[in-house]
């Protein structure tokens, strides 16, 4: 019993909710395969005549694409959209009536969804995609162990960023604009679309100070065994650091957000 059971319950709810939308999940499954195929042909064209670009061989790049997009199904979340919708339609009132930490409630509810996604999206996509495209197994000594841990950390990091984006709705009523902007930042700078090494140096330097690349790029480097051991540890520690910083920022922002809440009428 106690608090742990409570957050376990949120996970369960997140999981059960998605069980109700199996068809939607199937459609997502198909679109992810299409994106991976598209990337495959794109990179094939880019790599023609090159053995290595920006430190990635063609084989590494394909593995990067398949594992990256599959992992995305796991660490993606809808927290920002859910908070935005709840503020707009006033159902936020019902969330506030539950004796819980609002932030952890969202983290764990989304984690339940992530577990569902892992079973019904991530794994099937990896299986199907590796039958079609050349994908290599995790490399290095630590790849197989630290990669899963790192992706779970990616989830909580991304959850934190979404949570902050969601809270914007308390101030602006509508967080659609910020939500789109955040989505763009994450897509581009997490490294899901292209590895960070493809960017100019000054962008790479700037990204060192931002949390985004620890969502996808860092774990994928671990998977590919492209980092020395010391760097792997550093990457995981930086993930944890960012999770803590963003969690605390969420707690502080919440304090101000709740004061701004206006629910008029029913």
């Amino acid at each position: 019993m106690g608090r742990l059971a409570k957050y376990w319950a949120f996970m369960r709810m997140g999981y059960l909710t998605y069980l109700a939308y199996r068809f939607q999940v199937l459609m997502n499954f198909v679109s992810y395969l299409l994106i991976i195929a598209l990337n495959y042909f794109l990179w094939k064209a880019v790599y023609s005549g090159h053995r290595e670009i920006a430190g990635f061989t063609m084989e590494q790049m394909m593995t990067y694409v398949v594992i990256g997009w599959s992992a995305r199904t796991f660490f993606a979340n809808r927290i920002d959209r859910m908070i935005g919708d709840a503020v707009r339609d006033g159902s936020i009132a019902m969330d506030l009536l539950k004796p819980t930490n609002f932030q952890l409630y969202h983290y764990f509810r989304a984690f339940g969804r992530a577990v569902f996604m892992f079973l019904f999206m991530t794994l099937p996509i990896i299986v199907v995609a590796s039958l079609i495209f050349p994908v290599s197994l995790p490399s290095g000594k630590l790849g197989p162990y630290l990669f899963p841990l790192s992706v779970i950390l990616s989830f909580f990091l991304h959850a934190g960023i979404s949570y902050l984006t969601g809270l914007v709705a308390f101030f602006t009523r509508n967080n659609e604009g910020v939500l789109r902007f955040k989505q763009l930042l994450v897509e581009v700078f997490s490294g899901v679309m292209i590895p960070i090494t493809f960017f100019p140096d000054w962008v790479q330097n700037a990204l060192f100070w931002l949390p985004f690349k620890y969502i996808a790029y860092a774990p994928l480097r671990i998977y590919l065994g492209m980092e020395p051991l010391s760097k792997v540890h550093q990457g995981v520690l930086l993930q944890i650091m960012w999770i803590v910083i963003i969690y605390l920022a969420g707690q502080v922002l919440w304090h101000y957000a709740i004061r701004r809440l206006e629910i008029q009428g029913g």
Partner: protein
Amino acid sequence: MPIIEAANLAKHFRTFRRRSGLWGSFKDLVNRKYETVRAVDGVSFAIEPGEMVGYIGANGAGKSTTIKMLTGILVPTSGRVAVRGLVPHRQRYQHVKQIGVVFGQRTQLWWDIAVIEALRLLQRIYEVPKADFEARLKKFEEVLGLGDLLNIPVRKLSLGQRMRCDLAASLLHNPPVLFLDEPTIGLDIAVKASVRDFIREINREYGTTVILTTHDLSDIERLCRRVIMIDRGRLIYDGELKSLKEQAVGARRLVVDFVLPVDRAGLQRALEGCPVELEGGGPFRWEISFRRGQANAPEIIGLLMSRLEVRDLELEEPRIEEVVREVYRRERAG
């Protein structure tokens, strides 16, 4: 000692007033005009443990906003509020554990999962011991007739079914205070009755303090001895329902359909000696209003039936807007 206290409680919203037209929208970008809406404006009351209080007022009077402050959802602009010694918005975590809340227009369950799953989640969220949970669930199942509903996803329930499930959900942790915001809105008469019976039984058995907002006076009549009335954010009545009704609910209305056209003079002649007001209508349908104490329905109906040919008639219960108007009129007069 009161279980719920509000002192000079106020909530002001600042709303952005949009100007019309294209030019107006440009002006809005540069220079926004705000205006303050005083949704609740200095309300004070105290409620004792075990009371069932009706919190009434017309639409937009500030009922829901008050409830949202008492439940800790909204932070008051000024004033004090305490429920069992806790300040709702400051001690939200401890506070929400001691209250149950039902909003007629919303659900605390989750749309996509079955009712029983939602209730089990609430059990964990409120940390209710398993034995207590089972016992309460069994009781609610019986009294509210939840049996067949438990395995249906919430989104597939009808309004009445959902409301019964929401009531059960709000009481799983046996809260000493229950807030009901429009619990019977949109329900048919049979469900309304079972919801009211249930609330009365909970109050009697567990001594639960109940605050009920509604704009259906019949809810209040069945459940509450005391009413607090609010209008435009201000408290305008706090006392016994009986005396409010006797004194304030003066005007009742009788709507009559006649077989043959009747003009005003004809109707006045028929009701000679009976102090009534004819409120428009005619020639086939007339609305006749009268005050309690000056005239009564059987007398008027008797006169009409004996002198004119009546096709149909209906006695309307006073609407809350009329009661509010009546309270105002009395305040000005006295």
